[in-house]
């Protein structure tokens, strides 16, 4: 790959600019769907973009008592983590820009970077809502991360490779959702936990702790965090669709399947009441992890018997 195409892939397509815009579009679709589920009109199509433009144009207030360097760099790290993850994933139904054996694990860790940065950003400030929010964010990270990873490892095990493109190729021929329904559900719900969507929005529950870890953020920092979340939404949906829903071999399949998943996410968001953080943790460790683990073990045993 020449330097020019590499730069193109990083900055413009499929990484970089396009994925940011698609992330915003997906955010809009999510908000619109939730609004319609609630019999409301919902935002117009450019609303998330307008929000981001407004935030980017605003002054960033660095509050007293924070480490200014961390305060400014954390959003950048969060966004770059999400963008880097996008390079290893078959977004838009195209082959991943970069691929190596074991990139699945790297991608999952890169996706966690956003949450980690959010937690650190909250812990960096003196705001009491931020501190509680940071604690909750990190608590939640530790509860969904293990089952989410296990749910993604299921298809990897079936495909016999930890390379995303290989798993996607394997998943393209068969709907793994039928063979591993538990894994699919856990992955999807795990994605909701990752993105702090209701009912897993305890870390940013506005009626308790205002905006959680990001309470002190305004302007550019908040914009970058939100962009990162949009990218993560697309990347996460791509992973689940590619692994469990018969692959995303072409752009049409990609958009159809990810948007269908988004519809399910929006439905769950509007139908479930927010869980308390202890309930979230309990749910994941008592049910999510155990179920994912059981399925994982069954897969290993079945693989061993078949071999």
């Amino acid at each position, binding site marked *: 790959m020449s330097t020019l195409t590499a730069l193109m892939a990083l900055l413009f397509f499929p990484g970089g600019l396009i994925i940011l815009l698609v992330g915003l579009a997906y955010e809009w679709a999510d908000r619109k769907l939730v*609004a319609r*589920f*609630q019999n409301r009109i919902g935002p117009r199509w450019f609303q998330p973009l307008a929000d981001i433009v407004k935030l980017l144009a605003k002054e960033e207030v660095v509050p007293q008592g924070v480490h200014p360097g961390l305060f400014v760099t954390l959003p950048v790290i969060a966004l770059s983590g999400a963008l880097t993850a996008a390079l290893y994933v078959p977004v838009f139904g195209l082959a991943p820009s970069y691929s190596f054996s074991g990139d699945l694990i790297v991608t999952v860790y890169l996706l966690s970077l956003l949450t980690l940065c959010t937690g650190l950003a909250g812990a960096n400030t003196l705001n009491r809502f931020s501190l509680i929010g940071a604690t909750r964010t990190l608590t939640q990270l530790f509860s969904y991360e293990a089952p989410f990873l296990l749910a993604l490892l299921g298809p990897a095990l079936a495909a016999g490779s930890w390379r995303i493109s290989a798993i996607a190729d394997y998943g393209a021929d068969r709907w793994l959702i039928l063979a591993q329904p538990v894994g699919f559900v856990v992955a999807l719900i795990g994605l909701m936990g990752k993105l702090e969507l209701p009912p897993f929005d305890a870390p940013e529950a506005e009626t308790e702790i205002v905006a959680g870890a990001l309470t002190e953020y305004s302007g550019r920092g908040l914009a970058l965090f939100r962009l990162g979340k949009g990218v993560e939404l697309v990347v996460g949906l791509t992973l689940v669709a590619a692994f469990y829903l018969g692959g995303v071999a072409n752009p049409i399949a990609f958009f159809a399947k990810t948007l269908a998943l988004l519809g399910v996410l929006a439905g769950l968001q*509007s*139908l479930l009441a927010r869980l308390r953080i202890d309930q979230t943790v309990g749910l994941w460790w008592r049910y999510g992890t155990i179920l994912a683990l059981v399925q994982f073990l069954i897969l290993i045993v079945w693989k061993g018997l078949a071999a």
Partner: protein
Amino acid sequence: MKVMTMWRDALDGLVKSPATQRYPFVRAVAPDRLRGQLHWNPESCTGCGLCAKDCPAEAIEVIVLDKKAKRFVFRYHVDRCTFCAQCVASCRQGCLEMASDAWELAATDKDDFLVHYGAEEDVEAVLAGAPAADAPVAE
């Protein structure tokens, strides 16, 4: 114990048109009894000033220029009005009513909120300063 008990509402919401009113573009029909801007009918007014006395918001001034000739100017502060219709209930002659069609009363200039009812030359006389604005009202 059930989960997602509101699924039917959610599906309905998806198909039905949104409940949100598209207000500035589409105006809902106001009910007949809606209390909008106050209107004064000078025909039977005796200038007793009970409306002004009972008004909890002091939105009404009855300015008597000549009681015998029934020359009254009815000054109404739309911005102060709380639309309680006490004046309508207080008026024994029934010369006050609240219009159900005039309810978009916002204005950018405070002067727009000051409404004068009465014969033209009387209003001009009042505006020219016959009794000063905010002068004590006649009983």
